[in-house]
């Protein structure tokens, strides 16, 4: 059996003395799209930040393997260069740095060796991504997320994923706050990343985006644990009934 891209084993993590992730097991295989669902405050965003190596969060138990390698000691840029990507729920602004310049720098970081990034290749990557996400090309001259609307920020996150072509994209609530047209475009951007070599972990509160992006597996997270797993039908079940029955069911155990 081929090695999974991501293996999370018995993971406990938190910030300061507060434990937020309380024992998670999650395996993501190459070529698959997983959805991680759950109500607000269940620890979904924390899990994404722990995976990407946010310095504020600490793993207290368990391990995370990326392509079989424990990433505990790796800094965020090392995880990025290894093939991980996080589309932020709240991306930061970088005033004074244009989107084009930012993307060039992030790509150059991947071409430090003997495969130089040619201007022509760079331009094609940008043009393709911009076209796919139906973005205004003038975005390339604007400063990263500086004065961007919510929807513009989400598109820029997906544009970065399209340009950087990570093996594993973790998308944290990329669907929230989008109108239906934007949602459809973003979903196409996510679908465009589906390939036998890559995988997507789609973190969402709502089932809505799963009408456009079909997950292979759905995981439901509550209070720092994954409490239920299933196929795409699980998402529909949550959509019709909400999280309450699940919360009650667990409380009665």
């Amino acid at each position, binding site marked *: 059996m081929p090695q999974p891209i991501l293996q999370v084993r018995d993971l406990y993590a938190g910030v300061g003395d507060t434990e937020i992730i309380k024992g998670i097991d999650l395996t993501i295989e190459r070529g698959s799209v997983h959805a991680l669902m759950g109500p607000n405050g269940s620890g979904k965003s924390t899990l994404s930040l722990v995976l*990407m*190596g*946010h*310095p*504020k969060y600490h793993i207290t138990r368990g391990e995370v393997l990326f392509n079989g390698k424990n990433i505990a000691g790796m*800094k*965020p*840029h090392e*995880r*990025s*260069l290894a093939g991980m*990507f*996080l589309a*932020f729920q709240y*991306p*930061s*602004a*970088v*005033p*004074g*740095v244009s989107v084009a310049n*930012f993307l060039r*720098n*992030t790509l150059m*970081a*991947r071409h430090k060796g003997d495969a130089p990034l040619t201007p022509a290749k760079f331009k094609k990557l940008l043009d393709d991504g911009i076209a796919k996400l139906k973005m205004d090309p003038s975005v390339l001259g604007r*400063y990263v997320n500086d004065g961007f609307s919510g929807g513009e920020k989400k598109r820029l996150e997906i544009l*970065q994923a399209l340009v*950087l072509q990570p093996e594993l994209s973790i998308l944290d609530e990329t669907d929230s706050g989008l109108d239906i047209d934007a949602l459809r475009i973003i979903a196409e951007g996510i679908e465009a990343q589906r390939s036998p070599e890559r995988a997507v972990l789609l973190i969402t509160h709502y089932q809505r985006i799963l009408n456009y992006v079909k997950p292979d597996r759905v995981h439901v997270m509550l209070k720092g644990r994954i409490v239920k797993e299933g196929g795409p039908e699980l998402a529909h079940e949550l959509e019709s009934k909400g999280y309450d029955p699940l919360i009650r069911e667990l409380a009665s155990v």
Partner: protein
Amino acid sequence: MAVKQQQLVDKDYKYGFRDNVKYAFKSRKGLDHEIVEQISQLKNEPQWMRDFRHRSLDIFLAKPMPPWANLELLNQIKFDDMYYYLRAADMEGNTWEDVPEEIKRTFDRLGIPEAERKFLGGVTAQYDSEVVYHSIRKDLEDLGVFFSDMDTGLREHEDIVKQHFATVIPPGDNKFSALNSAVWSGGSFIWVPPGVHVSVPLQAYFRINAESMGQFERTLIIAEPGSFVHYIEGCTAPSYSTNSLHSAVVELIAKEGAHIRYTTIQNWYKNIFNLVTKRAVAQKNARVEWVDGNIGSKLTMKYPSVYLMGENARGEVLSIAYASEGQHQDAGSKMIHAAPNTTSIITSKSVSKGGGRTSYRGLVKVYPNLTGVKSNVRCDALLMDPESRSDTYPTMEVDSKDVRIEHEATVSKVGEEQLFYVMSRGLTDAEATTMIVNGFFEPFVKELPMEYAVELNRLIALEMEGSVG
């Protein structure tokens, strides 16, 4: 001649090398009327200038340090233990071949002849007290533009100099303008005839080579009606452990409809006290821009000013300051509105790192009974760590009613979230910090000629290496 050049001590400061030159003339240490007399005699100056120097020395000796300054640092200056006049070469060269070999090599390493070939209209290169090289492009000379060192300016155009010299900054303005007035040497003299547009920048490069010395260049730029000139200055010094002093006086006169742009990239080594008085007069419809970058020095005190004396005059200051460990960049600007419909814009950006300190000190003054005055002041400070410090001291004196004044000041920290965001895209913490700082300085950098923008970005990258995480 044996040339020995030592490698720099400070690994991040690539200009820290020094030359062991034999000085053609070296005054004794310390400052008194005898030294002033000696300097003036050596330069064979007219009596009025000699009197001016002596008068200025008396003012300097009588004036106390400015009480609002960082006296802890300022009082470290040992005025008695310093050379006030050092002449390295016996004559000024008009080709680089005329410049003594070891001095020429220094300017080669600083990239001056190369910049001159590529994009400059003229260069003066000052080494300690005297200008050792000077050139001006033939076409500019043919247009009647005067560009020389200040001493030559005084010799060859005494009438113009006498008419304008010290009219913008009198010796008594402050302690250091008095000091400069007493012992000034070198600097640039520029006169642009009416209507002449100098399309390529003129550059001066200031190098302090000796230890424990004072460099006192004096610059006077006169733009006659309807003319334009862009002047660029750069400065570096070897890495010595003892302090040196750089105290310049720069006067700009933009006559009716003239436009002067003055760009500074100050990168002194961290042993230099950089105490500079810069002031411009803008007459009717004139425009003066100060683009002022302060990266080096131990303590910089510099507040480029524009006196808006004629209707529709416009003054702009765009300054950046970067202070790391042991540095205090005390910078700012003064805009004096003395005529109706005048406009001023001050944009100040500072970065403090590793315990460095930046201050913004500014004044916007509007005289009574003026209409249509506009002023916009914006100060942004970026703190890289909790040890660093930034202060803002804005002053507004407004005596007219029909005035639109905007002032905005922000202090921000390089946030953990912002750094994490950039790092999560594959950049190391040094690369990410460099990107954030470069972005912060972008409004300044985009005003620079490309060659300087590249150099400034490179400097910032060097400063950020190994400084974080």
